[in-house]
């Protein structure tokens, strides 16, 4: 009896080895909120909730596997993953499927796959590896190489065209460079350069991308076109008030005024039904998750693990901020899902792999130093 309980505990210990309870609890809390919101948003198609639960099972399994892989092992995947990502992006450009006027998808067997999604992890992995390798002799030249490694996938993604993902991939690369310790002065110079390059960049943008940006400043200019999303989502958020309209009682949601209400605009549903209090809870959960991630990064054992953990954590923040800002009408409408909440298998998988990496970094924080 005592033996049985002892061995059961051992099995449990073995199974939960490397799993960080805090991270798991926070991310599952977010997923729970997401499923509740998804249920409300998918009243006409309840199968979405079950399918999201299936996605979750797969994502958790991936997390479990990744959490047990040491960062050193992960490092080995960096170059192949990056090169594969670049190859796939080129393949998409040459032979991808066109959906909604953009060539983003690649047919893999029976399913379609977005290589740019993969780049969100592969690029930070690659850059972290690169900086780690040259840790001892980090010079300006290395930052230039890193910038080049960043620019290639970003440009390939941007010309699909998928500006949203391109910006996110670029952000991920930038975070690595930032945490790698690029000088503040260089950073300032780069910002000025970046601002200056906005003008020629504007000329390269597609009409619909320009419209989206312009509509941000005045959504009423195009109320039935590009501004429609923003107008309806801000109405949803604003009408939610302090306490919200209550779960399943959002009129904007249930009368189908919110477009893409289970994916990119699910926050409008959440905010309408749970109000300012709900938003505060959501922000707090994200803040705690990010705090935990940054803490893990600060205590990471290696340069590589540090950069990777910090970057992944800031990516969670970036997704959440850009998505909520977009729904609340202070950021342009870009295709960014709300982490852990939005419906979608790929995004959930990427997120939990990220969580898995953080857990791995955390559990291996002392291995090298001893």
């Amino acid at each position, binding site marked *: 009896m005592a033996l049985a309980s002892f061995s059961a505990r051992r099995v449990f210990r073995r199974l939960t080895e490397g799993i960080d309870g805090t991270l798991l609890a926070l991310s599952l809390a977010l997923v729970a909120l997401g499923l509740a919101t998804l249920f409300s948003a998918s009243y006409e198609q309840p199968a979405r909730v079950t399918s999201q639960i299936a996605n979750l099972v797969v994502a958790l399994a991936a997390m479990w596997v990744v959490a047990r892989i040491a960062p050193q092992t992960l490092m080995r995947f960096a170059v192949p993953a990056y090169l594969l990502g670049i190859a796939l992006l080129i393949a998409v450009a040459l032979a991808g499927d066109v959906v909604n006027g953009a060539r983003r998808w690649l047919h893999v067997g029976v399913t379609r796959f977005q290589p740019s999604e993969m780049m969100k992890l592969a690029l930070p992995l690659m850059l972290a590896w690169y900086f780690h390798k040259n840790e*001892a002799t980090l010079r300006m030249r290395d930052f230039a190489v890193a910038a080049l490694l960043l620019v290639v996938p970003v440009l390939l993604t941007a010309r699909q065209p998928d500006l949203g993902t391109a910006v996110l991939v670029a952000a991920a690369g930038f975070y690595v460079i*930032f*945490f790698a*310790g690029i000088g503040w002065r260089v950073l300032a110079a780069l910002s000025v350069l970046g601002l200056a390059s906005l003008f020629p960049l504007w000329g390269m943008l597609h009409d619909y991308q320009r419209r989206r940006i312009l509509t941000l400043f005045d959504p009423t200019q195009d109320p*039935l076109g590009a501004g429609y999303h923003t107008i*309806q989502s*801000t*109405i*949803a*958020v*604003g*009408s*939610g*008030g*302090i306490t919200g309209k209550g779960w399943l009682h959002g*009129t*904007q949601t249930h*009368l*189908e*005024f919110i*477009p893409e209400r289970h994916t990119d605009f699910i926050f409008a549903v959440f*905010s*309408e039904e749970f*109000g*300012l209090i709900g*938003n*505060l809870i959501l*922000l707090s959960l*994200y*803040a705690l998750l*990010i*705090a935990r991630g*940054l803490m893990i*990064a*600060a205590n990471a054992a290696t*340069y590589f693990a*540090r950069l990777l953990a*910090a970057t992944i954590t*800031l990516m969670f*923040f970036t997704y959440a*901020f850009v998505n*909520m*800002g977009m729904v*609340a*009408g*202070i950021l342009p409408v870009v295709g960014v899902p709300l982490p852990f909440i939005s419906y979608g298998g790929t995004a959930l998988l990427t997120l939990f792999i990220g969580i898995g990496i953080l857990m791995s970094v955390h559990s291996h924080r002392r291995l090298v130093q001893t």
Partner: protein
Amino acid sequence: MRLGELKNHERELYFFQLRIGFAGFAVLAAFALLFVRFFQLQVVQHDAYASKAEDNRISIVPIAPNRGLMLDRNGVILARNFSAYTLEIFPAKVRDLERTILELGEVVDVQAKDRSRFRKLYAEIRNAESLPIRTRLTDEEVARFAANRYRFPGVEIKARLFRQYPHGELAAHVIGYIGRIDQKDQEKLAELEVEANYRGTDYIGKSGLEASYQQELHGTTGFEQVEIDAAGRGIRTLARTPAQAGNNVTLTLDIKLQEVAETAFGERRGALVAIEPSSGGVLAFVSKPGYDPNLFVDGIDPASWAGLNSSPDRPLTNRAIAGIYPPGSTFKPYMAMAALELGKRTQKSAINDPGYFEFGGRRFRDSKPGGHGYVDLYKSIVVSSDTYYYQLANDLGIDAIAGFMGKFGFGSRSGIDLEGEATGVLPSQEWKQKRFRRPEQQKWYAGETISIGIGQGYNAYTPIQLAVALATLAANGDMYRPRLVSYIDNLRSGERRNIEPALVSRLALKAENVEFVKRAMAGVNKEGTGARSFGSAQYSNGGKTGTAQVVGMKQGEKYDERKVSERHRDHSLFIVFAPLESPKIALVVIVENGGFGARAAAPIARTVLDYYFLGKLPETESAAPVKRGSTPAEQVEEEESD
């Protein structure tokens, strides 16, 4: 070295942790920004957004009322509604109109005619919510579109009530037609402050009684509070105020009589008005050629429109109220009336007619060469002596004539319940002064008065004016405003509103004078110019023929019908009332370019009266049912001396 490396390591970690701290601070700042935005939306501006969300939820959908029916005096339906499916495009919701129309063609039959009609409507009605691309879809087309609906955002099938005029061209100018509300209609509705009641109404009366009784026929718009989605589709009805159908309008017109009259006209152009003298009620009202008002209901296609609009026959003009014609010799009974009333002539006053009247060195010819010899007032009407009336006009003077004729309604609008009535011209010194600009033109010349006496010169009246004058004479001076509507039924309340006869004036005419003129008019149809058509009538009646010159004849020139192009031929007129004692009908016929009044107009009048009094339908459908056999031989020569 190793120490330095280690130190470097620690320093590096320190800098990294500094940056982590910086990142954490940035995250907090960003989340604070989001929180401020949430606070702004959800607390500060909550009320505004809440009401916006509420607006999104509930839409007030107007329910257009069913338009009232139009019936003739015997309850025969003249205008009704039927339900049909239309395919409507919401231009605001469609990105590429042309492509949508093109693709719709793959699903339902869209012809060039439909496309051009749609474009015409789209150009005319700028802020229309939806416009039909196809009307009267078949069930199969409805099913086919429903299956392909996902391909066409902004295109919907609507069940609509359409107006239908079962009698087609018959009485088209009376009934009129409805059409899409355009900018001008909207302005008019705004002026009347009834726009709210027209939310949801797309059609409005454009002409005829459809236009003049628009407010009666329209009804009251109902409202439905509907919960809708972003695509504008109703999910469920929250509250409903039903629409109230428009009132049914019953006419004084007898559609059978109308049909007889129009058939008698055949292909000829002209007008006919028949009035009940004791009430002003219009029994028949013809303007030829007509048109099919059903063409206008869906929005007329440009080809049909161009055809109607550019036809030299001007089928869209309502000749009975807007056509102006010289009355010709039908003016003479009123001239005789004036002479008696004003004391210029007695019943016995006679002249010797040499066939012309000389004035200022100019000869005014009688239509009968050599003249009628001894002519008294009675004979002047019966044989239609021009010389007699040249002289009479000269003796009366233009202002006396104008003053007297004005009382009979000549030269002023009758006030009939139709829009677009013309005024005509009652010539007088004052009129001429106003009409012309140059002083030498403004002066009235005495010579101009002469031809006024035989209904020529500046005389120009509408057929409805002639009919009102005749009805007034027939009713011994009681003038009623002509009207087409008898009563209006409110189906909801069951209330019937009678349109009471409106006595405009009661002319103080001496009974003996009225009797005399009526007797002379009876003579016209018994032994005079009208006898050929009315000699055999089985009811008492009185009439007068008239021939109105379209082009002036030069001095001494003889009018030869064969030499004059068809459109320059004289107009043929005939006026008749019956029976002599308390007349039931007063009728005016004008056949454009029909030549002598006795020839073209009088037979039509006879056909109509025969049906009215005897229920007799014309024996043939032929356009000119002239009964030559019944014409006394000795009166044939009179025919030409109109």
